[in-house]
């Protein structure tokens, strides 16, 4: 009888082991080994966006924290950067149209004020007019204190989307079709 009991016990153990692993596998699905899974736009870990001071195109001294309560598009660019130049008008038009809930702070790395002014003057009249919208601020960071030191931006254009509570929502590297994507990136508030 003893060998038969041993065999029966063995079979029971094997079945129990199968059932346990099946349950464990269902309870905790395998972790993906690829870092690329999921949608292309990543969601940030809600780090606070470091505050900084800047002087805008109107000569006003402002801080990032002054814009708490609205989404902020913190856009790093320069007039010598080809993709930046191409997307600039689209970015201005798209953010001007969302004046109620979005603020644009466009931080230029241009080496001189004159280069920046010359670039703005070359824009079409409607773009020049929109760039003076109350929710659009253009500044120059020629020493790289905001661009490089604070936000570690080295490739232009780079855009950081900041939530209304001044936490970082996400980062976009490279140029973007703002007219098509701004509502996806920052859904309109009802």
């Amino acid at each position, binding site marked *: 009888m003893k060998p038969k009991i041993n065999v029966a016990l063995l079979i029971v153990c094997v079945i129990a082991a199968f059932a346990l692993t099946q349950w464990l*596998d269902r309870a905790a699905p395998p972790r993906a080994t690829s*870092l690329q899974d999921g949608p292309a736009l990543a969601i940030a870990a809600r780090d606070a966006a470091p505050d900084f001071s800047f002087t805008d195109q109107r000569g006003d001294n402002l801080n990032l924290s002054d814009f708490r309560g609205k989404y902020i598009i913190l856009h790093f660019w320069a007039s010598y950067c080809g993709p930046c130049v191409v997307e600039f008008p689209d970015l201005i038009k798209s953010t001007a149209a969302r004046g109620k809930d979005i603020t644009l702070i466009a931080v230029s790395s241009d080496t001189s004020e004159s280069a920046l002014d010359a670039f703005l003057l070359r824009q079409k009249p409607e773009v020049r007019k929109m760039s003076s919208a109350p929710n659009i601020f253009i500044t120059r960071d020629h020493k790289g204190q905001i661009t490089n030191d604070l936000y*570690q931006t080295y490739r232009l254009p780079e855009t950081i989307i900041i939530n209304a509570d001044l936490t970082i929502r996400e980062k976009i590297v490279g140029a973007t079709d703002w007219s098509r994507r701004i509502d996806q990136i920052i859904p309109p508030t009802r």
Partner: protein
Amino acid sequence: MIVPRIRFISFLFLALMICAGSAMPSLAQAADVDTTYFKAIPVLQDGRVKPLDSFARTELRRFSGKDHIDGKDAADWLAQTLFNPAEATQEKIFRIENANTRHLLGLEERKIPLYAYSELVPGLEKTFPSIEDLVTHPDKNMAEDQKSLLHVHENALEYTRLLRSFSLLLPLDISLSDSWRKKAGLSADEEITYLKLKKIDPDIQDSLKKIIRKKGKDPEKYSDKEQATAMLGWQISTIESAAARNDLLRVIPDRLSKDPDSYLAPWEIVNAGKGSPETARILDMWQDLAVAWQSGDPQKWTAASAKIAGRPSVSIRAELVYNLIQPFFLSTIFYALSFLFVLLFLSLRSVTKFLYPVSLGLLLAALGLQGLGILARITILERPPVGTLYESILFVGWIAPAFALLLEWRVRNRLGILCAGLTGAAIGLLGLSMADEGDSMKVLGAVLNTRFWLATHVLCITIGYGWCLVSSVIAHILLIGQALHKLSPPRQEELRRALDLLALTSLLFTATGTILGGIWADQSWGRFWGWDPKENGALLIVLWLVWIVHGRVSGEFSRLIATMGYAFLSVIVGLAWIGVNLLGVGLHSYGFTEGLFRGLGIFAFIEVALIGYAGWSISQSSRRRLAA
């Protein structure tokens, strides 16, 4: 009669110690700075977050074949490579065994063929054109010399990526005029780094455009100041192009990714736009660490490395302990000693009774250490421990001695311990020989990465291998014991009964595992059976066992033939488990490894000779007894 026995046993002891010594990792001297926290810094490599200690060991083993060099441990070597690259290139870490490769690279002959990167550079430049041709050929068409040369170039490339990992933070040997220093916000004695230069790069490019517009592209026409500006621009772009696609050392957590295990390499911050306020803070910490290393300040080093390491996770801590203890090396030693002592006990029983409990104790210690090592791997990898060929060897190397110990508990004839020690030591040595091939804790491919099938099919098959190996060893003991007239008839009967049970249990596990494998294959690859070499190997074991068992039951096979058949299971399992991987084809070729062909061939030859001779000797003895 005692003296020849002692001589034989002494030679056996010496042989075992030599085998163990050749696999022994020597203890490296402690570094001048405390690398405890440095070792615990998490790094992402090959899809897995591991401690920097494991990364350092893998990289150093890749170049030199060992995880320590010149008395320094791998972490110490890595710190020097990252933070003092100029000195690091003088360290002799590249092992080049192939004499033709050494000749092609113009290297001097040495007793130990280790060379520094600085010694390799002229030869690498000279042989680079031939490498460009070689990379278009598939591996199997390359001669051994070509493979060796390509391997050296690949290692050199990996090494340069390691050297340049923190080149954006380290001080540059560049002269900068006062005006540029002022623009970059640098004081007179402040070190110049790439990141600081990058801030003034737009100004440098602007100045260069003006110079070129005014004087053209010929630097001969420039003034000293203009030449200095041109040189500065060129130096920045040289540093950038040297670090292009450098994503080797992923130590910076990517806070902008939703994957909590996403890490960035320092140069990805610049090259791929992955910078953020958090990465700025982390790079500052690494800068402090680099400064502490270069200034040789142990307190600052410890503080900076502790800050970066933070609170290590459970799996990081487990892996650090695993690296320190090296449980599989220690367990192999204990298995070997257990085998030796029980052999001594069986030979000199009346003289050395204490050897049996010592042998048992060593065996239990080996099983305990190996079990803990396997548990550590489960903790670190978060999956069952049988995903790769190496892991299956570790697991079978624990299962087989454990079953043999179970056998010893049932029959108490000391042969169970003998079997346990022998299988543990033999499989342990096999595992150690495979442990040098890069990181042994790999992330599995998608088809293997389902816990259910890993825990059922693979475990079942490897348990079956374990039972088969124990059966084979018992059969060997029976054959050799009979041939040498060392086994009494009752003892022989005892072993035969045990063998019959072991064979049936082996058949149960291997057959079940093979069927489960078919079900898994059907789910993963859309077919139950594809005559894949690994599938054929598993079927081979099942068919062999079925043939022997049925031959015995039907009376077609004598006891001797059946015992020889069970003994030959060692070769069958070797072919099915490891031999099929040498083919490198089929859906199961994820365990492909080089260099085992000759070993397997020699083993099979020895087994055929040993089993054949033992069988012939026994049949001759039987014939003589019958004639008498």
